[in-house]
């Protein structure tokens, strides 16, 4: 579904990503784990068109999306939930969700999508008129995810959904990610919380200072000595 080959990204003279290769198949949850500054977010931003890579190709559903404007990529069915949630703080919950459906042309189907989002995140329905900036961190994360779902993505990119959340909420968010995946959305998950990410993912890639150093089945990686030492605390 998503294929990345030989991706090189530079920030000025700094070589942030070195020859990244990976792919995401339909129906999977693939996770990209790694420490701070490993290049996880950079990878996501290059996929969603926020950063232009120097070399390499990214293709989505068979068509190349390298250098395509971010707004067109969303229309193709690839939507990113940005790091730190980035909800529209002064708009209401409902308005935030409406913004998520911005690229949609099929107005008449929107009602069903609201229902889908509200059954998945009942808490958002309770707070439908509330100003989004006054929601708690967990609710904001739910809103960010709900907003992305409103664009009916085929592939959902999640950037650190566990950031700044209490452990209990992290669990809840991750089980929701699994539900979303079961409902037919492919997920590419970027996480620092390697333990949680590996527990729900099908496959995983480990990034280290711009290189992919390990890849494979999520369960195997979670069991491997190297990963345990570096990311899972022994």
């Amino acid at each position, binding site marked *: 579904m998503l294929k990345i080959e030989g991706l090189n990204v530079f920030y000025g003279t700094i070589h942030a990503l070195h020859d990244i290769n990976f792919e995401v198949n339909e129906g999977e949850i693939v996770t990209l784990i790694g420490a701070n500054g490993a290049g996880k977010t950079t990878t996501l931003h290059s996929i969603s068109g926020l950063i232009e890579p120097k070399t390499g190709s990214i293709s989505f559903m068979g068509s190349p999306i390298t250098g395509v404007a971010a707004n067109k990529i969303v229309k193709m069915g690839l939507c990113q939930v*940005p790091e730190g949630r980035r*909800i529209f703080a002064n708009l209401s919950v409902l308005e935030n969700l409406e913004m998520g459906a*911005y690229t949609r042309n099929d107005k008449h189907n929107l009602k069903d999508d609201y229902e889908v989002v509200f059954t998945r995140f009942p808490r958002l329905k309770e707070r439908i008129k509330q100003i989004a900036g006054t929601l708690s961190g967990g609710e904001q994360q739910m809103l960010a995810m709900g907003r992305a779902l409103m664009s009916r993505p085929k592939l959902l990119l999640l950037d650190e959904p566990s950031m700044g959340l209490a452990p209990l909420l992290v669990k809840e968010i991750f089980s929701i990610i699994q539900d979303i995946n079961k409902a037919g959305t492919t997920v590419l998950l970027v996480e620092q919380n390697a333990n949680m990410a590996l527990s729900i993912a099908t496959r995983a890639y480990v990034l280290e200072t711009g290189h992919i150093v390990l890849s494979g089945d999520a369960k195997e990686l979670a069991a491997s000595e190297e990963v345990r030492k570096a990311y899972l605390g022994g």
Partner: protein
Amino acid sequence: MKKNRIFNTITLLSASVIVFIVLAALLFTGIIDEYNGQLLTLAGIYIIVSLSLNLITGFTGQLSLGQAGFMSIGAYSSAIAMMNFHLPLVVSIIIGGLVTAVFGLLIGFPTLRLRGDYLAITTLGFGEIIRVIMVNLETYTGGAAGLKGIPSFSDTGDFLKDSIIKFSWVYVFVIITIVIVNNLINSSPGRAIVSIREDEIAANSMGINVSYYKIFSFTMSAFLAGIGGALYAVYFGYLNPVMFWFLTSVNFVVIVVLGGMGSITGTILAGVGFTYIQEWLRFFKDFRLVIFGLALIIVMLFWPRGLMGTNEFSIVKFVRKYIRKEHEGGSSKPSKIKGVK
């Protein structure tokens, strides 16, 4: 939905016609004297330019300190259209707006890379450059001596009639501006614009073409400011580059901030208030600027989000509430009308 829109438009239109008739009648009978009539007219022009600034600063979130520059382009180009090409008044005013829109498009491009303070400095510089150009283009603009003899709205010789006609012209343009800005904000491009103010990266990831809408907003804002400038030129009948210096731009920023960034009604209230306070404080001479600054600080202390915040006073909502009361409970289903003014 369609029905709502028609209802809203009719309510708005009739409300503005009523307000107009009342004001015109008050002017005609002399209850509002000429002095106040002049002030209201000037306030109308301030409202137009402030609304244009609110579009770019309040709704799109791009701080612009060059609105007076846009205004002067509109003022001079419409004056030149009238004096050198002898075009009719309406055409000249619209030309003023269009020429300014072209400049807005040009200044829109650097805004794609600049943010916050940097953008403010750039637009400030732009305003000053325009002023200096106007001083030096003596053949067309009259240079530092100013441009005299711009034809007025009307020349009946009757002072009262003239002031009513003046007022009507400006009032009509104020209404048009309000309708344009209001409809824009409540439309799909408007939502895109507001989401850019809220968070550019998020807007981008929602599939909004951020660059396009930023430039769009700048162009639109410049167009409206140009219209305001053109009216300003005709209103005074005389132009001088000094009228459009840096502090003029600041005045509009003050109006927008006082009224509430992102509130149309706030801008209207603050526009009228500003014009009057400026006049009342005239006997303090230069000290009025000090008092003005003090007043600003006090307002900012007690209403940090401006008089209206991002809220709107909605005539339509008001009328709707009234109608519902008349029908006594009528339907109890919650209406989903947003704050349409």
